[in-house]
């Protein structure tokens, strides 16, 4: 069969055979001629080398198809020869999803398979938030002499879905992130949810109920009481998912986008618990928008979104992105009184401009910024300086910024809050 290509492995053996034969004639030694004859036999073996039809079946089993983050999942790969000929030299490389890393065992396997035989490989991956699908498995087939090789692929659909619970820790200091007092409202009934705000001069037409009778009794003046309604805030968590935001200080640990999504999911849960209506948006090539709302269904929807939406995947996107279009679209979708919590590492200047523009449009913006910078090289140190300058610029223009370094999110929020209340 003319399957596969020539590896050129045995190139040059024919030359050695000739030299040996010539030497044998020259020295009249028959032993050398015999050695040359042996070489001819090997050349014949190489000449008839061929790869049979390759028909393989792959099965992949996961010890847990829906793990929690950082759980170790054992993957068992079974390769079966479904053809009618023996495959003498089989080298298999499994298509582990790009966001997952193998921590134990080997995702590769080398064997010889008779028809109907099965070989197994077992390895362990660490689960990471998201929906991960396995790529095609690459198989390299060779004939026993190694002279002919063929590269084939086999598919077996397997998906690992890691959807962490949206449970905020009870002690998360989120008060400073949103302002509870959304605006002044005139309502008839002072009751729960209303707080005394101020007294002003009576204007013709104010409702009788609102007149401050105490003052009338004391001084004879007419004055109207105003209340502020403690209204639930509408908050949108915007996560920076542009390719520029996909950075990390090293190869271990989470990327900046993963940390931003961590912060957003924690904030989502805490704000929802606090009675606010919360929405989610992604600022990047992959669009994602979940309008602010509340309730159990909404929480479940958000949990699924954070875990499985391609916008929040840990792998960098490769689509085209038009930032000004995205900002306009975001502006259209945001309600006029919506507050924004922008989760971004701020490793480029555009992130800063997004925050400032949203603030300029009238939305209260708080930035939660995970710090992905390091000091390992000159460029890295400069990037740290640049990010620091950006944070200062934002703070200078009135935007609140939470700088989240290596500590836990709770500690970072507490530290930021302490700074704001000074």
């Amino acid at each position, binding site marked *: 069969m003319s399957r596969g290509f*020539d590896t050129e*492995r*045995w*190139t040059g*053996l*024919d030359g*050695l*055979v*000739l*030299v*040996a*034969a*010539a*030497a*044998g*004639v020259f*020295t*009249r*030694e*028959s*032993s*050398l*001629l*015999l*050695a*040359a*004859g*042996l*070489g*001819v*036999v*090997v*050349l*014949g*073996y*190489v*000449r008839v080398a061929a790869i049979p039809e390759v028909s393989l079946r792959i099965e992949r089993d996961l010890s847990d198809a829906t793990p929690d983050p950082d759980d170790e999942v054992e993957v068992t790969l079974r390769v079966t020869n479904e053809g009618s000929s023996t495959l*003498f*030299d*089989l*080298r298999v*490389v499994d298509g582990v999803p790009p966001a997952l*890393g*193998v*921590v*134990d065992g*080997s995702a*590769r*396997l*080398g*064997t*010889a398979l008779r028809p109907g035989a099965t070989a197994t*490989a077992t390895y362990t991956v660490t689960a990471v938030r998201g929906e991960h699908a396995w790529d095609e498995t690459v198989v*390299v087939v060779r004939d*026993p*002499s*190694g*002279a002919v090789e063929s590269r084939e692929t086999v598919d077996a659909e397997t998906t690992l879905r890691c959807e962490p619970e949206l449970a905020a820790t009870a002690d998360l200091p989120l008060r400073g992130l949103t302002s509870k007092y959304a605006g002044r409202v005139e309502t008839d009934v002072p009751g729960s949810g209303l707080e005394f705000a101020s007294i002003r001069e009576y204007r013709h037409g104010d409702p009788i109920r609102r007149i401050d009778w105490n003052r009338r009794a004391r001084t004879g003046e007419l004055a109207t009481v105003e209340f502020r309604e403690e209204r639930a805030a509408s908050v949108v968590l915007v996560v920076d998912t542009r390719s520029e935001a996909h950075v990390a200080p090293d*190869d271990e640990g989470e990327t900046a986008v993963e940390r931003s999504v961590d912060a957003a999911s924690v904030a989502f849960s805490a704000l929802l618990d606090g009675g606010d209506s919360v929405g989610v948006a992604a600022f990047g090539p992959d669009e994602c928008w979940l309008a602010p709302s509340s309730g159990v269904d909404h929480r479940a929807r958000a949990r699924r979104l954070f875990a499985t939406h391609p916008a929040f995947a840990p792998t960098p996107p490769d689509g085209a992105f038009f930032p000004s279009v995205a900002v306009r679209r975001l502006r259209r979708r945001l309600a006029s009184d919506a507050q924004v919590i922008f989760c971004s590492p701020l490793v480029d200047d555009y992130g800063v401009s997004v925050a400032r523009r949203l603030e300029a449009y009238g939305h209260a913006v708080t930035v939660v910024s995970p710090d992905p910078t390091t000091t390992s090289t000159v460029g890295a140190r400069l990037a740290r300086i640049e990010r620091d300058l950006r944070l200062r610029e934002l703070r200078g223009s009135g935007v609140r910024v939470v700088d989240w370094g290596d500590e836990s999110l709770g500690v970072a929020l507490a530290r930021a809050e302490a700074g704001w209340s000074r």
Partner: protein
Amino acid sequence: MSEITRQPTRTGTALALSAAGFAILALGFTTSTAAVGGLAATVALAAGLVRGSRRIVDAAGGLFFLSLLFAGASGAGTEALLLAAVGSILAWDLADNARSVGAHLGRETDTRRLELVHAAATLVVLAVGAAVVYGADRAAAGGQPITAVVLLLVGVVALVAVVAR
């Protein structure tokens, strides 16, 4: 673990060096120079396997070949030379395969079955070939006239040109 180590496999290295040892042993029954050549070739083979270099492994194969030539030219016995040839070809083949498997699969994978099957196949072919050639030599009794030798040589040259890929 993350990235695999793309170096020649341990199993393959062990097998290749065993075959090389066998070749040295066989060469030991010829001249001492050839045996030293075989030793040098084995050292080169080991070096090539440590560094994962195709060139050095090929050079080791060349050294084995030169040792065989020298042994044959110095009047070695047919049996010893054939056994040394089998050992040398096997050693080179197993070393190159170890390099190839290491590049494809890495050291961390268990490749014993794969490499043993390959070694067995090559060994069978070499053994059968040696037996056939030896048998033909035994069947042809006595010294041969020069014409026969020349004709056989020309025949071999032509057949090699046909048979080579």
